[in-house]
């Protein structure tokens, strides 16, 4: 079973994602901000990270850089209410970018795609 770590400062988003993704058969862990993200990743060993950008105590794009410095190949999907961050150069270090919606079809599609990606080590 693939494990997903959802990093979002809004509780109802974390609950919604956890419920919907668990229904899809994923194991889900959540975090309310990006502080201490590397320790959480080490602890949870997720297969995918879903990362909000605009969080109260941290910026998802900076958190993404922090993740990439240590975990070169861990799939990270940026998930933001704002499409405008897609033009920020930092966002290209993410595997995918999804604009938040109550319909999680696009997000689920991207999760399936990044898990399907095979790149030789």
């Amino acid at each position, binding site marked *: 079973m693939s494990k997903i770590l959802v990093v979002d400062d809004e509780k109802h988003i974390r609950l919604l994602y956890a419920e919907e993704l668990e229904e899809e058969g994923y194991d889900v862990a959540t975090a309310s901000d990006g502080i201490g993200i590397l320790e959480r990743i080490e602890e949870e060993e997720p297969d995918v990270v879903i990362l909000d950008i605009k969080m109260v105590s941290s910026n998802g794009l900076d958190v993404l*850089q922090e993740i*990439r*410095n240590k975990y*070169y*190949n861990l*799939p990270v999907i940026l998930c933001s209410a704002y499409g405008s961050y*897609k*033009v920020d*150069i*930092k966002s*290209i*270090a*993410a*595997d995918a970018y999804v604009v938040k919606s109550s319909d999680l079809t696009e997000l689920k599609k991207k999760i399936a*795609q*990044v898990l*399907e*990606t*095979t*790149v*030789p*080590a």
Partner: protein
Amino acid sequence: MTFQEENPSGISKADIIVGIPSYNEAGGIAHTTEQAALGLKENFSQMASVIINCDNTSTDGTGQAFMNAESHGIPKISIATPRGIRGKGNNLKNLFRKVLDMDAKAAIVVEANLRSISPVWIRNLGEPLFKDFAFVSPLYVRHKYDGTITNNIAYPLSRCLYGRRVRQPIGGDCGLSSQMAGIFLKSPLWDEDVSQFGIDIWMSTLAVNEGLPVCQAFLGKPKISTTKPKDPALDMGPMFRHMVVTLFNLMNAFTNKWTTTKWSKPTAIFGVGISDVEAPPALKVSKDRLYMKFREGFNTHWDVYRTLFSSENLQKIREIASLDLDHFEMPVPVWARILFDCAIGYRRKILDRSRLLEVLIPLHYGMTLSFVNKTEGMSHHQAEEFLEDLCLVFEQSKPYLIYRWDQ
């Protein structure tokens, strides 16, 4: 191959090397050398550093200009291929040898004719090499019509083949660890095209396939050289041939890797957050000339297309050739299959290899015109998004290539 060396300070060891490959670059090398020296002084002052000019025995005084350049106390060495031996690849092979001979931990390569280079380039290309990365590829700010060979061929094809999103795989400037230099030096895949301009795609491809950590260095500024920005409609230089042949040759060498690779992964970026980000200079494109060159090529090579391309592709190319300039469009799935068919034709030796490249060039002009028509009203970021979608089409079309490769 041996090299001639001038080492006035008698330097035999260094922690970090900046290598400047050149051939007849007397007008630009002093500036590059000075900026590289400042970059080393500002960012690597605790380390023993050296700047090495790797030259093809230039006849315009490049060696002298390098030796006379201000280097702020950083020692300089000049090495040169024997007279008559040319090629950027040959220069870099000499650099790889020096990296190992001098027991250096890292090397940074910057081209000799850079007007826009700043000390930040040296920092961003070099620092990741001391944080476990083995190869650092450059990430410049580029005009949407600059680098059409990169945008149409090198980036989408290498990304869909090897599954790594390295945006400027033929950028020309890079950083490499000593481990990477050793791998490059021992590689059995070296050939004549690699010894010329094929070296850039060769290094990027080997780096992503060796499984060592690769990252991109954001350089903040556009790459501006002492030569004028090129209209993409101008004739293709030897770089096109060397790059495409090398890309196709490596497809043969790494078949087991790319046939098992699906989709792609991003590549970490080092150095985002630079304050002095500059917009690239304007670039004029002659659409009429692109259209004319596509049409001329279509009329001249139609018979060859029939031997090279699948029937579904042929039909599409014929349709595209009937479009007028303003409505001209090369659908991306067609372009992806054109490149795939060319790679297959190259592998099967359906055509003489130089003839195959001659046939591909007008189609590349057609794709460039299509890109210009589609992105004319777009901002830089919108054009980048368009290109990302283009790459996704290549990745989606890959089963076509895999299916036909061994047929």
